[in-house]
């Protein structure tokens, strides 16, 4: 039986700093470490290019995830392909780590129908926009897999603000009582748009929520990709072995605006942001790999170039999509749509054709 009470408060870390030596993660060889680097760089590149594309008017409003890449890449690397991922909009590009083309996600942010994928193709659920409402979905899927005696586990991503939502609670509780093989992954970046964590909860740490559900809680440095990987691997192994859900609180700091439409200078501590940016997750992992002698500039440059190239092709492919057909208005909501869809479509065609 895993430790439930009290939940741990000390942040788990692997990557060292001036005062602490680097640790290591058992079971990861050099090629694993480089693959993880490839993932974290791909996400960083996706995010930085998307902000540029937004400024160029090539995608719509975009939710930035700069300095969240370690949480996403580290946790996904602890999963198997059969495991399901339930992203929020902060993890919009997480499907890239499952082979989804960047054009698909860019199309989502362009509001084009080609951006809506079949979750079963990647075991990545649709991007959830209303905060925390996908936690019950992930609990239900994980429970449903368990009832069917399948091996798959699920992971659901949400932010610190989501822990105030009723649906987070109902989903976490459902996972607890059903013993669903689920990882509840909270990326605590300490801000919900302009609301700081201190206005979100009186709890000393979000990981303490785990105690109320009778499940283990892990607290990890969210900018330490190796610590995130190791913590998630532990939670996934427990889930797969029948040990039920785990709550992971990954602590980081939001160093970018909430989204392209947000100007955080009105509310955020600018000096703190500058301080946090110095310890952002990609640079820290690079430093670790260089100290270990696994990464040199030529490999790093090659990986960055691959990612940049993938994005160039991605935006080109997204922009090459033909304009969306307005007739799609009536597609896909029902397997078996009401008769009114037929007459509405006929009427719309007539109006659009100007007859």
């Amino acid at each position, binding site marked *: 039986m895993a430790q439930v009470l009290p939940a741990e408060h000390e942040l788990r870390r692997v990557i060292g700093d001036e005062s602490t030596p680097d640790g290591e993660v058992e079971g990861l060889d050099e090629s694993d470490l480089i693959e993880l680097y490839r993932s974290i760089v791909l996400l960083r590149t996706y995010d930085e290019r998307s902000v540029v594309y937004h400024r160029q008017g090539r995608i719509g409003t975009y939710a930035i995830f700069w300095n969240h890449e370690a949480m996403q890449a580290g946790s996904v690397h602890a999963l198997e392909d059969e495991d399901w991922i339930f992203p929020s909009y902060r993890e919009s590009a997480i499907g890239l780590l499952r082979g989804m083309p960047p054009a698909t996600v860019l199309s989502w942010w362009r509001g084009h129908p080609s951006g809506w994928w079949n979750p079963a193709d990647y075991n990545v659920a649709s991007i959830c926009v209303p905060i925390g409402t996908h936690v019950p979905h992930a609990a*239900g899927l994980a429970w449903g897999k368990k009832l069917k005696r399948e091996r798959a586990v699920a992971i659901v991503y949400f932010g610190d603000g989501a822990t105030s939502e009723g*649906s987070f609670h109902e989903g976490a509780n459902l996972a607890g009582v059903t013993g669903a093989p689920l990882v509840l992954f909270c990326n605590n970046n300490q801000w919900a748009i302009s609301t700081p964590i201190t206005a979100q909860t009186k709890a000393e740490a979000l990981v303490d929520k785990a105690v109320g559900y009778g499940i283990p809680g892990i607290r990890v440095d969210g900018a330490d990709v190796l610590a995130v990987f190791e913590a998630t691997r532990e939670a996934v192994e427990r889930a797969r072995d029948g040990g039920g859900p785990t709550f992971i609180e990954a602590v980081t700091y939001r160093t970018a605006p909430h989204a392209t439409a947000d100007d955080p200078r009105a509310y955020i501590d600018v000096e703190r942001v500058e301080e946090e940016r110095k310890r952002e997750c990609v640079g820290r992992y690079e430093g670790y790999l260089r100290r270990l002698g696994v990464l040199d500039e030529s490999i790093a440059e090659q990986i960055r170039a691959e990612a940049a190239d993938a994005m160039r092709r991605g935006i080109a492919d997204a922009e090459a999509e033909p304009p969306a057909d307005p007739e799609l208005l009536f597609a896909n*909501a*029902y397997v078996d749509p009401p008769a009114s869809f037929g007459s509405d479509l006929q009427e719309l065609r007539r109006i659009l054709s100007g007859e």
Partner: protein
Amino acid sequence: MSELFLVEAVNDALHTELARDDSVMVLGEDVGRAGGVFRATAGLLDRFGADRCVDTPLAEAGTLGGAVGLCMAGWRPVCEMQYDAFSYPCLDQLITHVGRYRWRTGGRMEFPLTIRMPYGGGVRAPELHDDSPEAYYVHTPGVKVAIPSTPADAKGLLAAAIRDPDPVVVLEPKLIYRTARGEVPDGEHVVPLGRARLAREGDDVTLVAYGAMVPLCERAADAIDASVEVLDLRSLKPLDEEALLASAAKTGRVVIVQEAPRTAGFGAELAAILAEKAILDLRGPVLRVTGYDVPYPYWQIEDAYMPSVERVADACRKLLSF
């Protein structure tokens, strides 16, 4: 055929469908050990086990949200909401996800879930055990809504809902759970969604109703000196528009009866359809007999809120003398 009460027919449908399809499961509050507060799920736990008849935590949004995930894992969940008004927390999931998820996947995933609940007033119950929330459900894109008024339809519509590839809400009129009694086919019995039932044929005026208002309209038909047609819609979405327009064309007079509050209720939608498509067939205005635009009242005065034989008969007389 068996002679069953309406709620027994619901139970029969659940037993039949769980036996027919291994992926069907029932979940909700008190559906297992207790067999449901109205006994609608009695016997399922013993017969099909705790994996397929699940007592959930007391969390309607969590239950419906969980059902979305269960669909993704290959199940066909049937969620019970214990009472009409207790379903409101689940509207969050219904509106934001249940009605949208198939669309969100570009039509590539199915969400064949059913939500069923007892609904409606007249049962001398505490507050929020009496609501008629059909308009919220019908208004939600991506969702279908059925409401039976007879035991045979209670079985057949629920079976259709469970087998339907889209999410379906089935509202069961609790007022007549144990007063409506009738012949119900044994074994598999499916009443397709989207087909109304002519409960009574007549020539002078059409009463359009669903749920517990159907037997009320039949009593009203007996009470007035005219030839009254009673159309039981059975399914609000998809709607049998053809049957509605055919009856309006036949009698030229339509009274719509619903126990939900009047404003923006389903009756308003029916009246709008008649205005758009039957205007030349009508010999008078489309009238509505509905609950009032007030919170459902204290039960000592609920009979004054509910549409009554007198109010329906009064509307018919007004229309006949228009």
